[in-house]
């Protein structure tokens, strides 16, 4: 469902010149699977997911989603994914229902299907009471629910979540994770980025540890623990990152400090 091959992305930056945000990243995700991208802030997770959502164009490499290349067929890719991140806010001047309905129409869903689908989604996510509430009057948790509803309104086969729980309290975060688990049960292909170990251990079938634009290692949680002989995921994560930083210093690769 998702195939990413040698994806690279570099930016021009006023202070630092050319910055490589992503360097030859490759992975693939199957339907019914949750793939976790684990990395500290600024590791390149968001850049990678933005390329997959066609918002950014890769400098080199290829990403194919649901059979469509992100560079050659961006419209088809967008029609087949649901994307949610900290940057995909909701409109202040629309109610929950209007917002989700509007996006449903953008995806070209016919009206009767859309209305029944909206009823289902609002029931499953328990959003009935915020149905006619304006975006500006919602709490963070409510907004997150609307975002999830917006993400799945067109029933896409591929779902991309970029740090969906960041900034949420425990209750809401739990609800979001449950929603993701529910979607996995429906056979969706899900990619999920986070910097929280517990979420990975709990949710993900496979994980990739990403740091400074490179994937350091990937596999199931058990595989990783066995390979590095470290039963604690958190320790394993730090170990990988420190080792990579040391290699960079030793190798004298002139990448500027922390992003």
């Amino acid at each position: 469902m998702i195939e990413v091959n040698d994806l690279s992305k570099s930016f021009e930056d006023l202070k630092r010149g050319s910055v490589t945000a992503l360097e030859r990243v490759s992975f693939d995700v199957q339907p019914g699977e949750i793939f976790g991208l684990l990395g500290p802030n600024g590791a390149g997770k968001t850049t990678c997911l933005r390329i997959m959502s066609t918002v950014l164009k890769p400098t080199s490499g290829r990403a194919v989603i649901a059979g469509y290349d992100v560079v050659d067929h961006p419209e088809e890719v967008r029609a087949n994914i649901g994307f949610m991140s900290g940057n995909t806010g909701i409109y202040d001047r629309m109610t929950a229902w209007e917002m989700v309905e509007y996006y449903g129409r953008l995806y070209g869903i016919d009206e009767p299907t859309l209305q029944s689908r909206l009823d289902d989604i609002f029931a499953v996510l328990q959003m009935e009471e915020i149905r006619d509430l304006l975006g500006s009057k919602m709490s963070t948790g409510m907004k997150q629910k609307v975002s999830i509803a917006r993400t799945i309104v067109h029933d896409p086969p591929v779902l991309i979540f970029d740090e969906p729980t960041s900034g949420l309290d425990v209750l809401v975060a739990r609800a979001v994770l449950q929603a993701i688990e529910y979607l996995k049960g429906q056979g969706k292909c899900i990619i999920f980025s986070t910097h929280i170990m517990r979420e990975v251990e709990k949710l993900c079938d496979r994980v990739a540890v990403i740091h400074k634009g490179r994937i350091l290692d990937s596999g199931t949680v058990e595989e990783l623990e066995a390979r590095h002989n470290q039963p604690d995921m958190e320790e394993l994560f730090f170990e990988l990152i420190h080792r990579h930083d040391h290699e960079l210093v030793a190798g004298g690769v002139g990448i500027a400090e922390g992003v």
Partner: protein
Amino acid sequence: MVAVLPLLLYPALGLGMLQMTLLFQEQTRTVVILGADDLPAPPLVDGDRFHAAYFEFPGDVDKLHVVTDATSTEDATDIDLGQDESDSEVVNVADQLRDQVHDLVRLQREADESREAGDAVELEVLEGRITALKGEVSEAMSIAAIEVLILVPEGLKQHIAEINEQLAESGQDLSDIDPPRLQIVRNSANEKSLMAYRRVREAVENWEDRLLQDRLASAHLPESFPDPVNPDQIDIARDQQIAANVWSKLFPAMLIVMAVTGAFYPAVDLGAGEKERGTMETLLISPATRTEIVIGKFLTVLLFSMGTALLNLASMGFTGKYMLSIAGAGQMSKLGDVALPPFTSMLWVVLLAIPLAALFSSLSLGLAMFARSSKEGQYYLTPLLMVTMGITVFCLSPGVEITPFYSVMPIMGPALLLKAMLLAGAEASSLYWYSIPVLLTSIGYCALGLWWAIEQFQREDILFRESEQFDLNLWIKHLLRDKEATPSFTEAGICFGMIMLLQLVAMRFMGGATAGLMEDQMPVRMMQLLMVQQLAIIATPALMMGVMLTTSFRQTFRMYWPSLKFLGVAAVLAPVLHPLTVELSQFLGQHFFPQLPESAQRAIAPMLDSNQPWWLVLLAFSIAPGICEELAFRGFILSGFSQRGRTGLAIVMSSVLFGAMHMFPQQVFNAALLGLVLGLLAVRSNSLLPGILFHIMYNGIEVMRNRIDPGFWTTAPMDWLVTVEAVGESTQVRYDWPLLAICGFIATGLITWLLRQSAKIREDRVKGKMSPSRLPGASPA
């Protein structure tokens, strides 16, 4: 940014103003004098002009064309027979008007009498007849294009001569009397003093009148004595026309200002506001394409802009009318009954609001996309508003009216057309033709603006611009550190900005350097200055920036040997294109562009002056610009624009800028056209040399064209190719149709060949990836 803005804004506005003054030329108006033979002695009219002595500014004389029915001046004006015929036509029309004007005066007198007598019924009848008569007269005058009509009563000359005679007989000689003068002290720089002075002057003048009357009475002289002619002013404006005049000034101005503001705030909200609220990415991941998103936003902004403009106009119209109706006898009542314009005019307001609003909507949207936040977006309103206001003020100045040239300019076209439509009211049939170019070009400008907005929306660096502090120091460091082989798009733009700025600065020096010179030294100094200007202002900035900001000087300035065929094409294209462009710009100059002002003609004059040594003229007008301008425009600027790989767009943009540098409208057009060919040559040959060769040859031909003995052209083998025309004192060579046809044929062939060349080279480049040595005509960088 806010601080930097004014530093850039005003020089840019200054340059704009300069171009405007070059474009603007007041039209000559027609004045008809009937009974001119009866005008008394010091001559009022001199040929077909008023006597120059009566004008404060000598140039004003030519703004009025005087047509008289005088018998004595006929032999003086019959040089131009065609002119004379249309003049006598005008006199005939005016002759027929004479009786109507006399009727009008009589009716007005009767109306005044019945008003005093309080006869309301009679008054109404008379006023109806006056309005009808005024309508007839003003229509006849506007059809014959008579702006002012002067009727000289029969026997005026004789009458004045008699009075003068009587005075000379009866009076003693008092001409030496010079009484002590009253002195009034005021400060014209002080607003308060100025206002007080105006009142004082009024009182003193009236008091002086009384004094004069007393004096005249004591000398037994008539009251009309100090005003021997004392003309009666007859205003044929009807109430509706006065209203039209008010609306024609207010409506275009309000429409433009409201369309800008109405477009800008929603645009900022939909562009930068979306980034700020964090919904931009939500929108980007929707299945809509980016073009669809921008067009959707554009239509929204357009709706707001139109709505704002039209609602404001409607409200202003009705409120204004109401205020005037309750103002009663106050000062404003002098404006008359300000009736709203007729329905057809209102339709035009709505119709012309569309292209104006569309242009502003697309521009504001582009700016709003660029801004990081709504705050930053709002800073951009100032320059947009300033430029628009400048153009609006220009359009509203009296004397500026729609011409073919203005009709294709952005904002000006719709504004001037609207002004003319409102003035003409129902009699606007001749203006309908203008609506075609105005609407077509407006759609074009709007499409360009929209295309720019879409471009902005597709750039990652603009969509995801982080709010970092703009630091000039950091930016310059970045430019110097992260150099590339060829300059960037921005650097090319800055290079052009520097060239224009230096030109503005240099103008002062040019004026100063030629000020104190004798007539015969002028041309030589002018040419020296031209060469210095070429070197210092055009070539130097480009070369400096090339050295400082790029890693490959050679690649930036295309310092490669071209293959010979490109040099050949350039050498043939120059003489072949010269006749075509010269005739085209001649044609457009006569029918389309305004005339060049005097100062510009003086700068070009040495080129036509056959007394200067030919090598100096060639150096100044052909070799220096050929090399310098090519280095800047086909070197640095074209390389910069094409860095992103869009060569076609880069050629068009560089030639537009190349045109803009030439300032004079005719040259702007010509240079922009030739810029396309030059750009094509440079890109296809990947060398600057064919362009330089073309440029030098083209300018060289232009210089030599008028220096070759006219006899050479008129003898047997050449006489069917060109015609020699007399222009003032010198002669001018004009090309004939057979030659133009041949040239057109060859030029089309060569340019097609150049265009085709592209596909071949690109294919070779793709192959060349494997073996770069096989690249034809281009050495490896």
